[in-house]
């Protein structure tokens, strides 16, 4: 896999980024949408990082900026202020095409829905990022990736012939095959029943455990968060709490309930 072009970073942050072992770092991230009356501060100074080979869950009330955080971290959206680095590369230094190439090579996505191109089969969807980079992954790799998510026999099916959970698993297989440094998932189980959810979460966990990849997942389900190594709690665009160590659904729920007793303007 060709390394993304590393640019000489400006001296202020250059030394910082090179020394870190973190796959993704966010520094002073602020995102403001709209102007005047319709001005919304979605992120209000977020500084955090996601270490290589870890699984982080991002939680928070609706509208707290979870998705915005994910989008900015993944280079899908540009923050108003602040710096994002992925594998030591500053995203704000990159042009649109370089950013795209970085996404193609280093980042995987699993969205809540609409993960797959409807006109392509499951196997073709898995191949897509490599094909866009003008590489053709060996058929065995594609089959292996689909096998890993338990869909070996569905390779030729189109998204409309797959259930929601199966579609999410194809998206995971896609994230598996290019071995991206980091996989971002925005409520990947939001539209699934509990058994399908478990399958997808186990697969995400396996990315971290078996392949040393980094996963950042937005969720509002404490049970899903329990698969993570670390939980970030967001409120009003700020990181307000963090759980580490062995995480259980009960602990997460308790911590959330705790914050709920503190007067908060939004509900879950």
């Amino acid at each position: 896999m060709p390394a993304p072009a590393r640019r000489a970073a400006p001296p202020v942050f250059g030394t910082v980024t090179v020394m870190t072992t973190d796959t993704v770092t966010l520094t002073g991230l602020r995102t403001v949408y709209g102007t005047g009356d319709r001005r919304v501060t979605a992120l209000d100074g977020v500084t955090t990082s996601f270490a290589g080979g870890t699984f982080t869950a991002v939680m928070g009330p609706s509208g707290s900026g979870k998705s915005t955080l994910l989008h900015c971290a993944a280079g899908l959206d540009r923050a108003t202020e602040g710096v994002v680095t992925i594998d030591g590369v500053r995203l704000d230094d990159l042009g649109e095409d370089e950013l795209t190439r970085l996404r193609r090579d280093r980042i995987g996505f699993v969205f809540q829905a609409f993960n797959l191109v409807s006109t392509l089969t499951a196997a073709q969807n898995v191949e897509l990022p490599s094909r866009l980079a003008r590489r053709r992954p060996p058929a065995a790799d594609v089959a292996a990736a689909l096998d890993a998510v338990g869909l070996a026999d569905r390779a030729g099916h189109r998204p409309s012939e797959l259930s929601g959970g199966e579609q999410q698993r194809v998206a995971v297989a896609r994230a598996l095959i290019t071995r991206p440094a980091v996989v971002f998932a925005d409520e990947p189980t939001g539209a699934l029943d509990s058994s399908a959810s478990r399958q997808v979460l186990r697969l995400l966990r396996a990315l971290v455990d078996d392949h040393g990849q980094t996963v950042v997942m937005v969720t509002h389900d404490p049970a899903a968060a329990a698969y993570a190594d670390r939980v970030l709690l967001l409120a009003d665009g700020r990181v307000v709490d963090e759980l580490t160590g062995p995480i259980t659904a009960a602990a997460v729920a308790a911590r959330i309930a705790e914050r709920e007793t503190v007067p908060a303007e939004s509900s879950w």
Partner: protein
Amino acid sequence: MVSVRRSASAFVAVAIGVALVAAATLLLASGRPQVPDRLARAAVVVQSPEAGASADAFVPTRPWSATATAGLVGRLAALPGVAAVVPDRTFYAQPLVDGRPVAADTRREDAHQGHGWSSAQLGGLRRTAGEPPLRPGEVVVDRALGLRTGAPVTLLTAAGPEAYTVTGLVDGPGVLVADEVAAALAPGVRTIGLVLAPGADPERVATAARGVVGGDGQVLTGAARGALEPRGDARTRWIGMQVLTATAALAGFVTVFVVASTFAFTIAQRRRELGLLRAVGATGRQVRRMVYAEALAVGAAAGLVGLLVGAALAPLLGRLLVDVGYEPSTFRVRYELWPVAVSFAAGPVIALLAVWSASRRAARVRPLEALREAAVEQRPIGRVRVAVGALLVAAGLALSVGTATADEARIAAQYALYAVMALVAGATVLAPAVVGPVVRLLRSPLRRPGGAIGMLVRGGALTATRRTAAIAAPVLLTVAFAVLVSGMVRTTTAAYAAGRADNVNAGWILVPDRAPGLSDRAVAATGGTALLPTTVYRTDPGELPADRPLTALGVEPAGFAAANRALTVVAGSLDDLRGDDTVVVTEAANLRPSEAYAVVFADGTSVSLRVVAVVSDTSIPGDLLVPRAVVRTHDPSALTSTVYVRDRIDPPAGARVVDVATWAAEADAAEDRLVWLFTLLLIGVSAGYGAIAVANTLLLAAAGRAADLRLIRLAGATRRQVLWLVTAESAVVVLIGALLGGAVAFVGLLSIRAGLAEQVGAPVDLVVPWSVVAGVVGLCLLLAALASALPTWRSLRRRPARSSVGVVG
């Protein structure tokens, strides 16, 4: 990533466009002058000098006089390899069957032409019975007339009905008389045919003949002899060329337009998927290239299908063109290489042109758009788009002013067409900005049909302005085109007819019936004022071109002055138009009375006339006035076009009596008919296309809206309500397009009317053929209703609860 369903509409649009282009270009390539059968065996033909007129005037060449002909014949006969030299004489002669001209033959020019018997050897006419005509009063006729040898037959000639006896029958149109009779009826000769000795080389003989003829004519061999086809055929073919070129150009223009809007629409529908592609690593350029590749694939496949369909349709269309009079009866479809190549290339080219702007928009889709739930369009219209639209509208308005102020009808019509193209393009570009206000305008009529539905219809049309505009664009195009072109043709025709009727001071008018003109006998019987037109040739001293053709009208001055209200004498007096050497010219000639004016007449003789009066340019329906007797002397076969009479009379053979209004309306009836047919053809092409485009876009939209509709069903709407909703939605969009298109066309029509009023010098009524407009709008409405209701009905048969996977707001 080419999806069959998604590309279907673009495919159909391109295929139809290419089919039209292919059929039109194939027919265009087939329209070549034919060597007349009558001259098939004359390997070398000498034609008299070209008249100094533009190629599309279709005037006959300047004839040789009797002496010039005799000299040429003598010298050509002396050339080695020449077996016979035959001056081919052509004059008016029409056999009457049961006292009337044969109806079926009126459109074939050669059916009422007579020739000398010696001409028969030029074409290898086969005599099927009887003897050749040797004496005056003897004739050989087409055996298709059903006459027998020895039978009496009446021939209508320029002098009047004459009694002849059939001496023989041939296998071909026209009549053949004794050479001396032909020489009297057609003293001027335009064609001399050479029959070669066996084994003689035509090219060598032609070279020798060129030495003999010099500048006094052209020597033609092989396919070049097509130049000798009847002038009427050449003219018909020219009209056909115009029709076909316009059809092909229109088909191309409309196709690009319609396909562009289809592509724009598919791209708008695929934003989410394109966003996903961008998110997983496709660069903007890759997305753009993908869109281009899809268009190319669709264009090439559709082009191939279109080409095959067009090629299959060409012979049918060709026959149709002959039937309606756009091609001469000798027309045959030939499959040439260039139209095939052009049409094959047209598909991809049209598709690529059409996808250009959509591909730019596709490349600009941001990766985040994969994640946004509702596909609410944000800005309805870009700034560049507003600027482009405004520029186009401005250009259209400027051209409309050009139409209004143009002096010449033809130029005005051209301006009008460009004006409407610019206005239509502008209106389509600006449509998203205009759709909102128009929908709001339509609010009140929409309020009645059931509150909820009306609300949904308005809401949909207002928020998805681009979608609405994409559907309205083809309607706009079609209606604007139909209203403008049909209105322009009808208004112009009516204005000219009114102008003509105004200028004539007579009760009734005698016009030819199933004959090209009226004979002298018929004219004499009426006692009215007659116009006897003939073509003369004038070489202005020191000016080019030489041998300029002019229409000279043979008249009786007193009667003519009384019947012609428009007549304005600038100098001299019409009363002096007598004797055998006087002429009245128009101001354009730049002469004064008593100056000399030399012209060559139809018999090839050059006569120096004396100017006795000058009239204003628009006051006569020709270029010159000469005494009627002068025309008759020099052109024994000239036919009277019109006779003005005071009272209604019994018409003689080959004539009809009509009132002035009818005459004015009919005067250009043949021409008007062709123009109107042409107009309907163009409107038909664009309307069919527009309706297909509307249906296409709606079918696509229905696919995209299935989820929406299911939601409305779940919210408690009955099936009937949902059907009513989608039908009302499409109807509203079609009406918006029709309104915008009508407005655009109206601007164009008003400027055309202003231009016409200036030309005719009187106020002109705007004539809009509402039946055509209603037909076009109705067609669009019908197809729109079907295209939205049918797929909805099909999708509604499924249970409302089966919602698609993963659609969560």
